């Protein structure tokens, strides 16, 4: 009963906290004239990941919101594989007529940072909207008795002589691996990263004690937070978001690096007709404001910080990320092309 009460309180706190922090929608126009009747048929949205993951879900939510708003159907074409490269390649080969749009995440930026022949989402594509921006955290089990906060965790990890483990998605050059490099360099600890590409085994590994900690974004582990099973001990963001007021940031813990953010957005070919691009920008930016999309974002903890970037804001976010990734790749000795 105590556990139930405790978890309910956490849930209520998180729910009210996120609602109070919801960011305003900034696209005011409720309608926008179709340029020469465009679009006169359904749009196709290429999604470089499967339908069940974070990208699949945000694509479905945005497609639903845009259809609600405009009446234009959107067919989702999932092309998973190769960390998003399969979908990106397929999209670049599709006609640049405005009928094809792309969903992608920050992996597109890090892929371009590593290899400049890979499309740059800020210049080879036009960002219509970035609709999810979030930060990462380090989690431990709530019933963990070896450490309870970041300082005691670092102390314990150092005592393990490199044998402590953390679950994440540590593919070469990924946001997770780069951020972990920042953290381990700054805190002087060595920790074994275990790469799980799917969420369930990753979270199960922490729940079951197969690993000592987890690197993840709060929206993806919300149910474990609500259930009182996971506890954040470090927020990798410049300030403490209200709902995580008790969790220190990396800067407070003496780690001086700019946090890399996880972001998901929607794009169109750079050479698509300009008037069609303007209509798509309106549709997707306004789609972000639809109630259905807002409640989706809220359920995913995506209203804790400002998740919205219009085209210029998205370009700024991408450019900054690419620059950061490139610097750190060089420092890591990776072959930056």
């Amino acid at each position, binding site marked *: 009963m105590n556990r139930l009460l405790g978890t309910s309180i956490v849930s209520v706190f998180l729910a009210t906290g996120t609602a109070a922090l919801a960011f305003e929608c900034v696209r005011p126009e409720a309608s926008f004239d179709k340029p020469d009747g465009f679009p006169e048929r359904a749009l196709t949205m290429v999604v470089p990941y499967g339908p069940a993951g974070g990208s699949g879900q945000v694509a479905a939510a945005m497609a639903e919101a845009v259809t609600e708003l405009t009446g234009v159907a959107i067919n989702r074409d999932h092309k998973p594989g*190769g960390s998003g490269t399969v979908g990106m390649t397929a999209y670049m080969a599709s006609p640049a007529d405005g009928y094809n749009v792309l969903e992608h995440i920050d992996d597109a930026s890090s892929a371009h940072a590593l290899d400049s022949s890979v499309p740059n989402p800020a210049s080879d594509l036009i960002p219509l909207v970035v609709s999810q921006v979030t930060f990462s955290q380090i989690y431990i089990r709530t019933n963990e008795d070896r450490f309870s906060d970041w300082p005691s965790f670092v102390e314990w990890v150092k005592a393990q002589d490199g044998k402590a483990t953390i679950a994440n998605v540590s593919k070469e050059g990924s946001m997770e691996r780069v951020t972990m490099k920042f953290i381990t360099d700054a805190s002087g600890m060595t920790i074994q990263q275990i*790469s799980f590409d799917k969420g*369930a*085994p990753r979270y199960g590994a922490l729940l079951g004690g*197969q690993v000592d900690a987890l690197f993840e974004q709060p929206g993806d582990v919300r149910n474990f937070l609500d259930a009182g099973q996971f506890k954040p001990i470090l927020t990798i963001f410049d300030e403490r978001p209200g709902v995580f007021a008790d969790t220190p940031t990396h800067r407070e813990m003496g780690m001086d690096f700019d946090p890399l953010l996880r972001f998901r957005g929607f794009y169109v070919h750079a050479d698509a007709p300009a008037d069609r691009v303007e209509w798509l920008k309106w549709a997707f930016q306004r789609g972000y404001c639809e109630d259905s999309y807002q409640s989706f974002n809220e*359920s995913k903890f995506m209203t804790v910080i400002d998740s919205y970037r219009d085209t210029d804001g998205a370009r700024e976010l991408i450019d900054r990320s690419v620059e950061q990734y490139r610097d750190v790749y060089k420092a890591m000795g990776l072959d930056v092309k």
Partner: protein
Amino acid sequence: MIENFLAGSAALFGDPFTIGIFVFGVIGGMLFGAIPGVSMLTLAAILLPFTASLEPAQGVMLFAVIYCTGTYGGAITAILFNIPGSPENAPTAFDGYPMTQKGESGKAVGAAVLCSAIGGIASALVMMAATEPLANWAIQNIGPPEIFALVFFGLAVASSVGARTIWKGWMSVLIGLLISTIGQDPVGGINRYNFGLTDLAAGIAFVPAILGFFAVSEIFVQAERTAAGKYKAPKVSMAFPSFLELWMHKFAVLRSILVGFFCGILPGIGATLAAFMGYGEAVRWSKNKEEFGKGKLEGVISSETANNAATGAAMIPLLALGLPGGALTAMMVAVFQMHDLQPGPLVFYTSPDLIWVVFAAMFYANLSILIIGVIETKTILNLLKIPFQFLAPLILMLATIGAYISRGLVLDVIVMFLAGILGYLLRRTGFSIPGIVLGLILGTIGEQNFAQGMQMVHYDLGTYFSRPICSVLIAAGTLTLLTSVYKAFAPAKKPA
């Protein structure tokens, strides 16, 4: 438990609309599971947006029902035409299709119907009785090293299936393992054998490979026989397996329930591994290993019992911990979230009614497999009467659509035809298609878990043996391997 089950049953059958959704799920799952290329996942993805307008219990129940019947649906085409509807039905084709060729299609389909229902019902009952403790046990005791050991244990018997000699059996498995390494490595994301082709970075997808190795190579084999005037149409047989035949396989059924349940309960693993492991264990425990892959009823029984036993088990980590076991259960998480619910420990307190409607629906869905399966089988077996010259183009067309539709890549169609040609050539020379497919599917799962396990034990192989489950499985697998090598070298017994 019984009280809750009855309450769930009453909620399920007390409302005509809910009954309608249940029936739609049962039939839709069977149909989409049976048509190659489209799968229960396709149906689930189409239905996902519509579940927002349903009651939460109706939405989750619909997906659970589709999961049960869709897992069974692919067995029919696997048995009749050598086209597994999805990867978890591939081992069913190993012996199911040879049974069709021997004129025992009715027996194979009947066994698939019955054993799918038994496996599914058994796992639904265990799910109802012990969801929470089982889920906690699984995540605490089974990690990547144990899953790798399980795959190693399963692969150890793979050489015995369908090849002319044990060496060709091993070569077949190794070919499958080699194919499984194409694409990005599962841990570091480094490209391997993709020859600069972006699409190959995603690896060889299971569906086109299976369609190629099974369906396309079979068309080539039958076309050759037709050209040589040796083609014999399979006899249509409506004879179901007798009670005695099924009773003789009671231990195989029991073993497959346990294997399927164990695989299903592991987050991220699910029914595919269950089917392959169930089949592998049947081979391991059989005194007549050489009969597998040539039309042995036990092969069909083991595979179909195990894959459906995994369905109830896969719901355990989902409902108890919020950890989906595969793509379909991951979509169920989305259904929960659409209704502001989260699967996990709290759901038993916050939505007990929903949970018991889902449990009851899964029980009845598995029961429906038995009833609808028996009725449909009598009709569907008549498809075998279609002459080969009409059937072959139809199968090729379905297989091509199936290969393309899952990812929308032309590469997958090419892979399917290349696998078909390779399969045809290897079959002619005594290699084993089941061995290749076992290697391909188990290799992908095994490599990922081996790499993760090695990171976990700090690249110290010896530490694997400090984990009890892991060491038992590796030791048993090694023993099986050594036994098969010994038998290969041992002098053949002279006839008395």
